[in-house]
C-alpha cells in the first residue's frame, strides 16, 4: 500500500485565528492524509520537535497576526539545524503579496492566501511530497 502523506498543521505565535488551520487540516485528512494539529500558541521550537516526533513529510503553518516574517523562517532554520531539511514547509494566512518572495527565499515552499480552495492545497501536497 502506498504510504500516506503525513502533515503537521501548526499555529505558531500568539494568533488565535484557527478556523483556516482547522478547515485545512480536515480537508487534508478527508483527502486521505494523516494530519496532526498542534493547537494554538506554538513556538517554532515546539513545532519542529512535534514534526520530528511525528515523522511528518510536511508542516503547514497558519498565521493571521502579521508575525509570519518572524515565525515562518525560524521553523525552516530549526529544521535545518536538526538536519530535517526534507520536511517541506508551507504556510497560509493574512500575508501581504510583498512578503511572499522573502518567505519563499527563506525556504517556505508555498504561501496560500485568503480565498484559496482547500483542493489547491491538497493538489500541492500530492505534487510536492514524496518525490
Amino acid at each position, binding site marked *: 500500500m502506498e504510504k500516506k502523506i503525513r502533515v503537521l498543521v501548526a499555529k505558531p*505565535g*500568539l494568533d488565535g485565528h484557527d478556523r483556516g488551520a482547522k*478547515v485545512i487540516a480536515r480537508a487534508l485528512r478527508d483527502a486521505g492524509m494523516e494530519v496532526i494539529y498542534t493547537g494554538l500558541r506554538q513556538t517554532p521550537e515546539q513545532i519542529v520537535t512535534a514534526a520530528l516526533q511525528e515523522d511528518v513529510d510536511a508542516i503547514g503553518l497558519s498565521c493571521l*497576526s*502579521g508575525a509570519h516574517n518572524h515565525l515562518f523562517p525560524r521553523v525552516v532554520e530549526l529544521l535545518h539545524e536538526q538536519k530535517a531539511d526534507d520536511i517541506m514547509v508551507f504556510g497560509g494566512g493574512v500575508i501581504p503579496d510583498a512578503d511572499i518572495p522573502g518567505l519563499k527565499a527563506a525556504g517556505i515552499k508555498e504561501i496560500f492566501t485568503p*480565498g484559496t480552495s482547500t*483542493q489547491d492545497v491538497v493538489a500541492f501536497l500530492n505534487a510536492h511530497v514524496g518525490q
Partner: protein
Amino acid sequence: MSPDEHLQQIKEAREAWEQGPVQKVLKRFPERKPVFSSTSGTEVKRVYTPEDTAELDYNRDLAYPGEYPYTRGVQPTMYRGRFWTMRQYAGFATAEESNQRYKYLLEQGQTGLSVAFDLPTQIGYDSDHSLSAGEVGKVGVAIDSLADMEILFDGIPLDKVSTSMTINAPASVLLAMYMGVAEKQGVPFSKLSGTIQNDILKEYVARGTYIFPPAPSMRLITNIFEFCSQNVPDWNTISISGYHIREAGSTAAQEIAFTLSNGIAYVQAAIDAGLDVDDFAPRLSFFFNSHMDFFEEIAKYRAARRLWARIMRERFGAKKPKSLMLRFHTQTAGSTLTAQQPDNNIVRVGLQALAAVLGGTQSLHTNSRDEALALPTEDSVRIALRTQQIIAYESGVADTIDPLAGSYYVESLTSSLEQQAEKYIAQIDAMGGAVRAIEGGYMQREIQDAAYEYQRGVESNERIVVGVNQFQMDEPAPKGLLTVDPAVGEMQKQKLVALRERRDNLAVANVLDELEQAAKGDANLMPLILQAAKSYATLGEICDRLRNVFGEYVAHDLL
C-alpha cells in the same frame, strides 16, 4: 369573519396559487435551487404569508420599543433620539501612533473609541517577553504599563468619549490602567463610560487569547462586576461576544445560543458569588456579528433580544428593566471580506451595516475593504465610517423603529432562530452549562463542523462568493497597504527598560506581593490590581503573579 376563517381563506388562496401559476412557471423555468436555506439550515420558502406568523402575539412577543421583551429595540425612541454609536476598532504599533489614529477618527465624526490591543497585551505578556517576538504592535497597540496608556489617551478627555476595549483575560489590568489615566486627567470614575470585553468563555471557544483556567477567570470577571457596580457605575463590565464564534464558522442560530449560554454562565457565577442580579445585570452588554444573510441577521438581533429578556426574567428573576435588555455592539463580518477585488468589500460591509441598523444595534464597527490583506489604511477606514454615516443621514432607515416588524418573513425567521437557539441552550444546560460544554469541546466541535460545511459549499460552488469562485478576474497586486514598522518591538523594549529605572521598584514589588497573596484567598482583586497599575507595575508582571497562583489554561484541540 373570525381570524381562523380569515387564515383559512389565505391558505386556500396560497394553495391555489401554488398549484396554478407557480406550477405553470416551474414547468418552463425551474428555480435556481431545489431547496433554498439560511445559514442556520432553515428552509427559506418561496413566500411568507400570515400563516407563518399566526402564532405571534403582538403584545406578548413584540410589544413596543423599550418594552419587554424588547424584540423591537431597547429604547422607546431608538435612532429618532440618537443614532447608534459609530465606533471603529483601531490600534496598531505604539501608543503614539494609535493616539493619532483615534484623533483622526474623532475628527472624522466617529462618536466612540474602540481599542485594539496587540496579542502580547491580550495574553498578558510584556513586549520584551520571548513569546512576544514578532507580535508587538501587529494586530493592535502594544500596552505594557500605565505609561503607555497615558500616551494612548493623551489629549482625549475620558469624560467626553466612551471607550470600548477588546481585552479579556487581563481585562481587570487594562481597566485599572484606564482608571489610572482618568485619575491623572481629574475625571471621576463615575464619569467614565465604556466597555471591556472581559468575555473569557468565548476565548476558549473561538478567539484564543486566554491565560488562566476557567474557575479563576470567572472569579476575575465577577470581581470586576462587583467592583464596577460600586465604583464605575456607567461602565459596561462585559461584552458577551458572539462575534468571534460566528467568525470561527458558526451559524446564526449557534451564534445566539452559544453567546447567551455564556451569558447565563456569567450571571450564574456572579449570583453564586453573592451578588444581586439587579446590581450587575444592567451593565452586561453583548457583541454580535453582521454576516451576509441579510434578513437572517436582522432576525437574529431581534430573536436574541427577546430570548435574553425571557431568560433574565424567568430564569434569574431579574426585575429592573435594564437587567432584561440586551444591548449590543455589532461588527460586520471580517470572514466575509475577500482578498480578491477588495473594493467589492465596501458593498458587503454596506449591506451588513444596514442589517445591523435594521436590527437595532447600539453601536457599530464597519470593516474596511482591505482587511483580508492587512490592517486598514486611513483611507479605507474613512470609507467604512462614511458607510455608516450614509446609512444614518441619507437612507432614512433610522427614522422609524424596527421597520421590518410585521414582515411575515422576518417575524417567522425571528421565531425560528429563537427556537433553534433555545434547543441548543437546553442541550448546553443538560451538559451542566457553558463552562462544562466548552471544557468538553462541544461548542468548538459544532463551530468547526459548520465552518467546514461552509467551506465545502464554497468549493462546490453551492455558495457563490463574488470574485472568489465566480466573476474572478486578473488583477494587479494591491498597493498602499499599511505595514507596521518592525522597530516597534525594539522601541517598546527600550521603553520598558526606562520605566523599570524610573519607577519606585520597592513599591511595585510590595503591591505585587500583596496581590499574589490575595489571589490565594477569595478577596476581590480589583483594588490591588488598580494599585499595582498606578504604581507602574507592568501588565506582564501583574499577570505573572496571577499565573503563579492560578496556573494557565491548556486547550485540548480536537479535529
